[in-house]
C-alpha cells in the first residue's frame, strides 16, 4: 500500500448560512481545498462526498454527481461517490479516499463533506438526525437522538459517579476553543452556569449540551505521499484510517457507557500507525453531545473509563494541556453540519499540524487524531495524522 498525504484543505464558515445552498457549500469547500493544494482541477481523479441526508433536508439525492458537476468536473467524467454513515459520513468518505489513493487506484482524490440542515424546520431537523438511530425499534418508540445520549449520560453518572457539572464542562471548554476559531458557528465563551440552566432538551441534557443545527462544508485533497511535495511544502501524512461498527440500537450494547466501535477503531488505528494514545497532542472528537466527548476520550484510551468527566473539568483536555481536545470548538461550538463534520475534523488537524491554527495553535503538534461517530456509536472512524518533517 502507498503512503497517503493531505495536500490541501478548505472549508466554509459553519452556521446558519441562509444564502447558501447544499451545492454552494460543497463547491465553496471543495474549491478552496483545490486552491490550497495548488491544483488546476484537471488533475483530479476522483471525488468522495460525505453527506447524511440531502434527500430529507433538501429533497435532493444523487449529490456525488451534483457536486462534481458544479465543481466543473462533469466533462472530466471523474468517478464521484457519495458516502453515508449518518454522523460518520464525512470521516468515512475520507477513509474511502485514503483507500483509493493507498491502493494505487487513484492519485489525486478530493474528499468533501457537506450538509444543508436549515432548509427544514427544527422539529423535522431533529427527526432527520434521529434516523441515524434504529428507526423501527428506537426512534418510532419515542427515543429522540438527544434522549439516547441523555440515557448514556445518566448511566455514566450512575456507574461512575460522573457529575452533571463535569458533563457541562465539555461545553464550556469547547466554546472557549470555538471563540478562537473564526469559522466556528459560536465564537463566544459560555459559563458553566449557563449550560446547567439551559432549557432542558432530554434530561439530564440541556440545550447547551447539544451541538447546534448547522450548514457547512469541508474538503481535503489527497495524493500519494511520494508526490506530495510537487503540490505543497507542508504535506500532512495519513498515519492511519480505521473504522469499526456496532449494533445499530444503543439498547443492544453490552455496556451503555462505552462505544466499543470507538475502542476497536482506535486500537486498529494506533496499531496501523505504530503509536499509542500518549503520542497524540491533539484530538478532534465527536462531541455531538457533551457526554459524547467524555465517552470518546475514555474509549480512545486517553483517560481510564469513568475518569473522562473529571479530566475535562480539571482542564486536562483544554488548549495548553498535554492533550488538546477539540481545538476547533468541536461539534458543540464549531457546528455540526452532519456530513461535513468528519472532514472538518481532518481540516482542523491539518491546520494544526501545519502550524496554521493561529490563536488556537497547539504548540509542538506532531500527531493528531480524529474520531467521527455515526448514530449512537454504530459506526466510528478514527484517523491519525502526522506532521511531515
Amino acid at each position, binding site marked *: 500500500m502507498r503512503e497517503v498525504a493531505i495536500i490541501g484543505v478548505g472549508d466554509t464558515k459553519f452556521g446558519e448560512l441562509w444564502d447558501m445552498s447544499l451545492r454552494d457549500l460543497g463547491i465553496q469547500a471543495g474549491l478552496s481545498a483545490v486552491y490550497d493544494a495548488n491544483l488546476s482541477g484537471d488533475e483530479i481523479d476522483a471525488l468522495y462526498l460525505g453527506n447524511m441526508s440531502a434527500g430529507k433536508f433538501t429533497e435532493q439525492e444523487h449529490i456525488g454527481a451534483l457536486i462534481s458537476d458544479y465543481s466543473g468536473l462533469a466533462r472530466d467524467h471523474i468517478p464521484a461517490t457519495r458516502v453515508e454513515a449518518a454522523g460518520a459520513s464525512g470521516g468515512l468518505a475520507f477513509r474511502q479516499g485514503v483507500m483509493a489513493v493507498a491502493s494505487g487506484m487513484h492519485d489525486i482524490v478530493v474528499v468533501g463533506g457537506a450538509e444543508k440542515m436549515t432548509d427544514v424546520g427544527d*422539529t423535522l431537523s*431533529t*427527526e432527520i438526525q*434521529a434516523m441515524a438511530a434504529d428507526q*423501527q*425499534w*428506537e*426512534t*418510532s*418508540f*419515542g*427515543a*429522540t437522538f*438527544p*434522549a*439516547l445520549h*441523555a*440515557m*448514556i449520560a*445518566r*448511566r455514566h453518572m*450512575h456507574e461512575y459517579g460522573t457529575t452533571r457539572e463535569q458533563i457541562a464542562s465539555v461545553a464550556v471548554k469547547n466554546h472557549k476553543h470555538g471563540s478562537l476559531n473564526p469559522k466556528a458557528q459560536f465564537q463566544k465563551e459560555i459559563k458553566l452556569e449557563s449550560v446547567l440552566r439551559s*432549557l*432542558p*432538551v*432530554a*434530561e*439530564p*441534557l440541556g440545550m447547551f449540551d447539544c451541538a447546534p443545527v448547522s450548514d457547512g462544508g469541508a474538503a481535503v485533497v489527497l495524493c500519494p505521499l511520494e508526490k506530495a511535495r510537487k503540490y505543497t511544502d507542508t504535506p500532512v501524512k495519513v498515519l492511519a484510517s480505521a473504522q469499526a461498527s456496532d449494533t445499530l*440500537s*444503543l*439498547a*443492544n450494547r453490552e455496556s*451503555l457507557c462505552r462505544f466499543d466501535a470507538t475502542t476497536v477503531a482506535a486500537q486498529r488505528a494506533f496499531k496501523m500507525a505504530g503509536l499509542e494514545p500518549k503520542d497524540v497532542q491533539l484530538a478532534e472528537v465527536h462531541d455531538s453531545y457533551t457526554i459524547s466527548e467524555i465517552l470518546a476520550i475514555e474509549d480512545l484510551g486517553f483517560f481510564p473509563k469513568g475518569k473522562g468527566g473529571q479530566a475535562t473539568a480539571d482542564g486536562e483536555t483544554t488548549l495548553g494541556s498535554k492533550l488538546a481536545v477539540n481545538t476547533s470548538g468541536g461539534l458543540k461550538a464549531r457546528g455540526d453540519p452532519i456530513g461535513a463534520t468528519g472532514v472538518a475534523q481532518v481540516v482542523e488537524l491539518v491546520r494544526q499540524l501545519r502550524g496554521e491554527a493561529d490563536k488556537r495553535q497547539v504548540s509542538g503538534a506532531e500527531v493528531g487524531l480524529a474520531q467521527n461517530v455515526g448514530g449512537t456509536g454504530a459506526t466510528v472512524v478514527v484517523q491519525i495524522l502526522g506532521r511531515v518533517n
Partner: protein
Amino acid sequence: MAVARFWRENASRYNLIGTKCGVCGRVYFPPRSVCPTCHRKSIGKMEPFKLKGEGEVLTYSIVHEAPSQLEMQKPYVIAIVQMDEGVRITGQIIDVELDELKVGMKVRTTLRKVSDDGAAGVIHYGYKFMPV
C-alpha cells in the same frame, strides 16, 4: 404511507415476540435471523420467543423536545429496560410520576398508541412500560 412497515412488525410490537437461538439459547429482541454468537450454525435455528414483558430500568431520560408524534405527551419518559430474559428494550415509561423515576425500578409492558399517520391515517400501537 407507513402502513405495511408497522403492520409487518405487529407480533413484536404488540406481544414482544423476539427470537431465541436454538444453538446457544440466547434471546434477542427485536427478532434476528442470525445469532451474533453462533453465526452460521444458528441459521434456520432461530425460533420465535415471547418475552414476559417484565424488567428493570437501566437508564432513562425525560424528553422535553419531542418529535411531532409525541408533542401532546411532553415531557415524556424514555428508557432502556433490561428485560428479565436478558435482552434490552427501548421504550416509553407511562403513568409514572417524574420524581418516582429511578435506575433499577421495576416495569412491565402494556399496549398504547405509539404514533399515527395523521388524523385520517392508521394508528400504530405498540409496547410501552408502566411501573409495576
